[in-house]
């Protein structure tokens, strides 16, 4: 096999053609060898990106057969149990895709699985970014774009699974309608504008269809593009380590390594989703039957990403206000409005504002390109875990009937457990996470100051036995020493600065001092074997014992 010495003619030709017209050479020169740092957690966003690509491809395929119509027809397809049943064209065409189009069921299931993995991937990616502080300056805008993509994707999912018009999707649509109409002041109008008439009307499927296949995917595509461009321009963050600073990027070049790896990762993602679509049945619409607002099946559940809203609806007590009494206005169904708006609002607004709140509290206006390790900012990590606990409780109790049925607990007990846990679990998660973070910081400091257990027991001249500790491997040490204290606002007990004297200023200062600072200082010092002396003779290479590294890996 011969090595390539010059650019082959069939690449040079088109490349020259393009460069003559676009001047793309400068861009290519700067970017072909762009460096991408490597860490498994940096791949979570890629999972979401590739799932989105798969969604676009499979979704386009599905549109070729799907009929977004609520017009009623009598089913006459190959699925015998529903022959002769009156149903909407949307449901009939979903059955046709599943049973009569070759590969239709496969693509439909891939589409549904990809939707779950798209949103799950985004959630995991957002958590990675949050816990490593990668949303900090200069990446706040990209963080907000990400939050918007995630929020839009929830509605994209909702409009998508309402389309087949089976009994389950109709139940979801009914709940959506019940929430929409309950919104104060505007609810009734929104209901009629969305459904065209009273629920269910004849329009909602076709309206959801254009929202689902055009409006929201177009929006997501534009935002994803912006997200990637910003990531490209600002360069990816990296974890601290040997040779890695806030001023550089260490990793593999885009061409050829990163490009090929990303291609392979796309294929892996696709393979996993295709495998799920083949072997793991999802949303078997033919079993549910056509939608009727008079029918429901027990155990109806939304897709996982909306289960937290479902859980909030389920554990909410029955509060309703009639602020103007018997007059025809003023009904606020708190048991609908609060669960529909508050958890989503807390999570989305909290995510969007967090970078700015953190900057306000820490007074940190520097650029950050080194990712934090979650333990290194214990309060942030605890807040994140509290949010996960809050979300997780709501998510879990979206299945309170399933829990009760499977564990033979009274439904009311389960629901009450949810009502209590939704407040208690975040507090517990906060406290526990905070202690774990400090514990991990201490263990890091112990590795730095005390060394790593070598497994070698040494007998001292006076007869004592000690275990020899060796210096941690350089890369580990650099990684651990990469921690820097969370910044704190400068303060002066005697004369507080102007703007810190009012109640808000004092609160800001107190929060800053609680949030920031170094909880467990990194002390200097080497490993010691006995009597505080260096365990290893001077000059001996710390890497002489490669198994030491294995201990710390």
């Amino acid at each position, binding site marked *: 096999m011969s090595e*390539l*010495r*010059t*650019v082959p003619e069939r690449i*040079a030709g088109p490349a020259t053609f393009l460069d003559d017209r676009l001047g793309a*050479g400068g861009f290519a*020169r700067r970017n072909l*060898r762009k460096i991408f740092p490597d860490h498994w957690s940096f791949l979570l966003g890629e999972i979401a990106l590739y799932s989105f690509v798969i969604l676009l491809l499979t979704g386009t395929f599905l549109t070729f057969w799907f009929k977004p119509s609520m017009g009623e027809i009598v089913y006459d397809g190959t699925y*015998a149990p529903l022959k002769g049943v*009156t149903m909407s064209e949307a449901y009939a065409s979903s059955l046709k895709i599943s049973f009569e189009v*070759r*590969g239709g069921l496969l693509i439909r299931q891939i589409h549904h699985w990809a939707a779950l993995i798209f949103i799950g991937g985004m959630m995991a990616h957002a958590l990675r970014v949050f816990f490593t502080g990668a949303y900090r300056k200069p990446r706040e805008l990209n963080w907000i774009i990400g939050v918007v993509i995630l929020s839009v994707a929830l509605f994209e999912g909702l409009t998508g699974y309402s389309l087949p018009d089976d009994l389950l999707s109709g139940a979801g649509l*009914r709940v959506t*309608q*019940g929430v929409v*109409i*309950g919104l104060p002041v505007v609810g009734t*109008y929104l*209901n009629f504008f969305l459904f*065209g008439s009273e*629920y*269910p009307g004849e*329009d909602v499927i076709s309206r959801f269809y254009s929202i689902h296949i055009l409006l929201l995917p177009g929006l997501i595509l534009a935002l994803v593009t912006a997200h990637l461009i910003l990531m490209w321009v600002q360069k990816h963050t990296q*974890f601290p*380590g040997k040779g890695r600073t806030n*001023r*550089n*990027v*260490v990793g*593999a*070049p885009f061409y050829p*390594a990163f490009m090929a790896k990303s291609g*392979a990762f796309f294929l892996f993602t*696709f393979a996993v989703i295709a*495998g799920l*679509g*083949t*072997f793991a049945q999802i949303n078997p619409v033919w079993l549910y039957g056509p939608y009727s*607002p008079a029918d*429901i*099946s*027990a155990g*109806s559940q939304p897709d996982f990403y909306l289960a937290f809203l479902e859980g909030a609806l*389920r554990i909410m007590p*029955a509060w309703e206000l*009639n602020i103007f*009494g*018997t*007059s025809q*206005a*003023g009904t606020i*169904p708190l*048991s609908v409005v609060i669960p529909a708006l508050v958890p989503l609002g807390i999570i989305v607004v909290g995510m969007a504002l967090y970078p700015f709140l953190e900057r306000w509290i820490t007074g940190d206006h520097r*650029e950050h390109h080194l990712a934090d390790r979650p333990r290194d900012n214990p309060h942030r990590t605890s807040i994140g875990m509290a949010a996960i606990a809050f979300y997780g409780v709501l998510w879990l109790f979206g299945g309170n*009937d399933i829990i009760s049925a499977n564990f033979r607990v009274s*439904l009311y007990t389960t*629901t009450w457990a949810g009502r209590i846990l939704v407040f208690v679990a975040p507090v517990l998660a906060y406290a526990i996470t905070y202690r774990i973070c400090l514990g991990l910081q201490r263990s890091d400091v112990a590795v730095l100051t005390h060394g790593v257990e070598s497994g070698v027991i040494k007998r001292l001249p006076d007869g004592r036995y000690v275990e020899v500790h060796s210096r941690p*491997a*350089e*890369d580990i040490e650099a990684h651990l020493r990469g921690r820097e204290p969370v910044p704190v606002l400068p303060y002066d007990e005697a004369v507080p600065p102007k703007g810190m004297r009012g109640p808000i200023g004092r609160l800001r200062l107190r929060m800053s001092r609680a949030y920031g600072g170094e909880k467990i200082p990194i002390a200097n010092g080497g490993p010691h074997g006995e009597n505080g002396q260096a365990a290893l003779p001077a000059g001996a290479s710390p890497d002489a014992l490669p198994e030491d590294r294995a201990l710390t890996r």
Partner: protein
Amino acid sequence: MTDNEHETGRPDGRPEGRPERRTPARVIGTPSTEAPLSGTPLSGTPMSGRPGAADEGPDFKGPVFEDPDFPAVPGVAGVVPQDERTARRAERIAALCFLLAFAALVAFLVTYVRLQTGGLSATGASHVALGGTLTLALLALASGIVIWVRQIMPKYELVQRRHPMASPEDVRAEVAATFVRGAGESGIGRHRLLRRTLLLAAAPLGLAPLVLLRDLDTTGVPAAQLHRKLRHTVWGERTRDGKPLRLVVEGTGQPIRAADFNSPGGILSVVPQGYEHDLNVLAKATVILVKFRPEELKAGTNRNWTHDGIVAYSKICTHVGCPAALYEQTTHHILCPCHQSTFDAADGARVVFGPAARPLPQLPVGVDEEGYLVARGDFAAPVGPSYWERGDAEARARENGGHL
């Protein structure tokens, strides 16, 4: 060569002249100093200058880039080529993967043509065969590429500088000056009338698309009157010959003779006769019938609206509108499977538990001359989920002399 991580601080490439533990034998893809990376792909000049770059052998000390974007940094490995033997073995494995992918894709095409859809089992076979071959092909392709990247391509640990995102001060100043100059030239600041009329014109332009959405509501009712439609159901209407609507069984459409409905403990889902397939009607007017022994009924239930112990409640949950379809015989509890609101059917369907705030409205029932169950009027309060204009409809009905 067991450590395949491209990441943090690899132990090789140590600072200060310590001997390299892993000495790269060959450097692929490292542009030599004579042929910097810049511009090469387009001009067709050599990409990797000297072939000898591969043979720099033990003297190699990390990256040899002159390119300012890739400064040599102590402790960073640079481009570490793979062992030739590993690479040759990896090539065979990757090729095997690609062949497997080829075979699977051919099988996919054959399956598509050969296996037709039809009955459940035929469709299932086609589905599994298509999906299985596609999954296998994707998996094999991905694996082959990963083996290529990890065992044939060199291991990279290159360094690129970051630059602060902010533009230099002089650039900012220049942009600011340009902006001010342009604004001055445009005259938007000086010509107040121009500015104000332009803003004036823009406001309705922004409103126009919103106005266009008004006909999303196809009822043709003035917006302020929309909520009135929510208050009534078809139960208040009469048949063409002026008789009250019969209650018929959902699904079969059978009218119900009161004397025949004699199953204390069970519930029946019931719809208005003539509207059995009108989903818009069913979404509001579906009713559940429960038969009680007289002593079981409590004060919450309006006995005047029952017939011989038969009570009718709206099936549409007052929480968010799911059909409250589950019934527990021993406790007379009606349960909505969506969010588990629980209602006591013996006591006016008052809320026992769950997020619903109001009882299921009761429908006044009676019998016609043939003994079939009919509705004696509409619900006294709107059915289904709450909305802003609903108000306290139960209290309103009581004030107006009704009973709830």
